Every structure is written in structure tokens, then in C-alpha cells.
């Protein structure tokens, strides 16, 4: 019974975007993957939700600046379990072009468990969708 519910539930991952001080490039890319017909992610059952309380898969962009760190950690705590984190772009991995800045506290991996990395500056929509599909596989085991 639990297996069956798991199997059904994995088809409804709701996405939530956190901007951790990103330059907006990856955010535009994220909006593109959902909003234009060509890369429609709703066919996977995904839905962008405005509230962290409704989210299943968290998409984090940006290098985690010092100003935004506390807020991101609080937002992450508010997301109900089970949840999966996908880091979009090269910034969450290493800081990207901002890596030597005094304003950066990243990489995000030091503070939040990241499950899937989608590198790129910005990554292609296909890569983001691939990352979401990987995240769904991980999410299924936690349901």
C-alpha cells in the first residue's frame, strides 16, 4: 500500500524557487522552462507554487550572499518534509563569477543539503528539466 501511494505521489512534484542572491540569469531560465510551451514542465505534474509551505522540490539559484543567508535558511526550514533541493547554475556550487567576493558566504552545500546540481551560467532549459527529473527520482525514495 505504501509502495503504491509512493508511486502515485511522485507524479506531483511542486516547485519552489529561492533566489539566494542570483544575478537573475538563472531565474529567467527557470521562468522560461515553465512558461513557454516548448519546455512545458506541467506535463511532469510540476506546478510552480508561490508558498514554501506547498513545495516539494526547491530550486535554489545564486551564490548565497551574506545578506540573504538567514532568510534562505529560514525559508528552507519552512518547507515541509519530504523535500529535495536542486541547485541551479554554477553559483551555488562554487560562487561562479562572484567567488572571491567579500559578500559571498557560499557554497550553499555548507548550509543546506543539496541533492542535485545543475551547473551552467545559466544552464540550458533542457538541463534544468533533466535536473528536476533527477530530483523526482530522489524525492520518490523519501516519500
Amino acid at each position, binding site marked *: 500500500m505504501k509502495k503504491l501511494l509512493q508511486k502515485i505521489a511522485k507524479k*506531483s512534484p511542486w516547485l519552489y524557487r529561492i533566489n539566494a542572491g542570483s544575478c537573475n540569469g538563472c531565474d529567467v531560465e527557470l521562468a522560461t522552462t515553465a512558461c513557454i510551451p516548448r519546455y512545458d514542465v*506541467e506535463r511532469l505534474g510540476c506546478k510552480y507554487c508561490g508558498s514554501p*509551505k506547498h513545495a516539494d522540490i526547491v530550486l535554489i539559484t545564486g551564490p548565497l550572499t551574506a545578506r540573504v543567508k538567514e532568510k534562505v535558511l529560514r525559508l528552507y526550514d519552512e518547507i515541509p518534509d519530504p523535500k529535495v533541493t536542486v541547485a541551479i547554475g554554477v553559483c551555488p556550487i562554487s560562487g561562479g563569477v562572484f567567488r572571491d567576493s567579500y559578500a559571498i558566504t557560499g557554497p550553499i552545500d555548507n548550509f543546506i543539503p543539496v541533492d542535485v546540481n545543475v551547473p551552467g551560467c545559466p544552464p540550458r532549459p533542457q538541463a534544468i528539466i533533466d535536473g528536476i527529473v533527477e530530483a523526482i527520482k530522489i524525492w520518490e525514495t523519501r516519500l
Partner: protein
Amino acid sequence: MTDFVQLILNLLIFPGGLFAVALGLFLMGIDRKIAARLQRRVGPPVYQPFIDLVKLTRKEMVVPGTAHLQAFWFAPLLGFAGMMAAVTLIPIAGVYQGFKYSGDLLVLLYLLALPAIALMIGGSASSSPFGAVGFSREMVMMMSYELPLLVVLVTIALKVGLATGGIATFSLSEIVQFQLENGALLFDYTMLPALLAFLVFIPGNMGVVPFDIPEAETEIVEGPILEYSGTGLALFKLMTSLKMIVVLGLAIALFFPTPLGKNFLVNLLWFFLKCLVLMVIAITVVRTSTGRVRMDQAFKFYLRYPTVLALISLVLTLLQR
């Protein structure tokens, strides 16, 4: 005793309860699919709302520390229970009679206000500023769409009441019976403005895009339901799907209840088809082809056009006498 059993069955299994929930969720899935196709997307499968519900029951429930707990959990239950009761009042011609009390239309009118009230209670109890904004917007929205609805209902009650020799009849089963004998009100020219007014009322009450101001996702991040997660959110989703059945079913009962022959199953399918067509016209096409309006614009719009249309019908009905 058998009446009581019948009532419980009506509430839990056939027109209310399981059947209505399944029908409502299925209609929502079709709505999402058609909306996606209209935007040239592939879209989710039509059973997506069922999957969403299963998923939501498996999620953790997070409650904000400053929320008022009793009111916070009472709100989704209130909305869901109110809509469960409301569905049993909707007659389906040739399938289900509805209740034969003389005032069930008035009861339905009050029950229809419950989802908005539940959202208001939930939004204000969640202690979130977005919830509070959603609360005030929901209230303004309710005040604006209730007036045309009321005028439409009074018009139809007067029409049927005058034709059957009384003054006004607020019984849905009598209204349906009248239409079965004298032809549907859809084909009566004096009722066309009222029908238009009701069509405009539907997106406002359902809170879909041009009038999704209380739950504006991109603006006040879903407002009243922002703080709900897991089962609480699932109950709100169920409430919305049941509300859709109630509103569409009410429109069908008021304007076009005509059944197709005497077969039970055929009539049920016919009802489903009518719901589907009405939903596509009044919800799906509207929500894919418009953008959100401002609160004051929506308020003025509702007090201007649907109310005037409904009043035209009222005057025509009184003149025709």
C-alpha cells in the same frame, strides 16, 4: 429511519461525498488539460488533481508558531463540510431530486458563502501578513459578486413563482419541475441577461484568473492558503473542487435542467457533459485568455455589468406579468 439512511447516503456517497469529489477533481483535471492545450502546451494528465491530493496527504504539516491553532484547523474543515452539504441540495434532473423543502435555494445561497468565509478565517488565523491581505480582498470580492447572484436568484424565483400562481418560490426542486414542464429558462429571452450575469459570477466565485485577486499567486503568494500545508491544503483543494460542482450544478438547475430521456446513466452523463461545456465557457477559456484585474476594477465591474444585466431580467420578468 429509511429517510435518515437515505440522507446519510446522499451526503456521503451519491450526489454529495465520494461522487461529487471524484467528479469535481476530474473536471479540474480536464480544466488544466484544456488550459494547457489552449496555451499550446502538453499539460498534465487529466487525473493530476487526484495525484496532487495523494501527495498532499503524505506531506508534513507545518503550522506557524503565532497562528491561532483552533481557528487555523477549523477553517478548512468548515469550508469542506459546508460544500459537502451544499452538493446534496443540487438537483440533477432525471437522476436526483434534491431536497423538497420550500427554502433550499436560500440555504444554498448561504452555504455558497462558506468557502469564502473559511478562506477568511484561515487567512486571518494564520498570522501571516499575506493571509491578512488575502482576507480583506476575499471579503471585498464576496461583497461584489454576491449582489448579482442574489438578483439572479430573486429573478428566477419571481419568474417561476408568478407563473405557478404564487409570488416567489425559493425551492430549487420546484424551479426544476417548472422547467421540465414548461421548457428550460435558457430559451426564454427575458432570462438571457440573467444567464449572462450568472456566467460572469462563476469566475468571481471560483477565484480564477481575472478575479483571482484574493489568492493572487504572483502577487500575495496565494494569500489565505499560504500557510497551509499537507492535509489542510488538501482539504482546501477538495473544497474548491466541490464548490465547482455546486456552482456549475446550480447554473444547470436554474437555466437548463432538461434531462435526456429517462435512463439514469444517460442523464448522469448528460449532466456531466453540461458541466463540462459550462466549465469550458465560464472558467477555462476565461482564465487562459485574460490577466488579473485590480481589486477596485473587479469591484466596479461586478457592481456595474452583471448587476445591471440581472436587473434587466428582473424588470422584464415583472413587466411580462
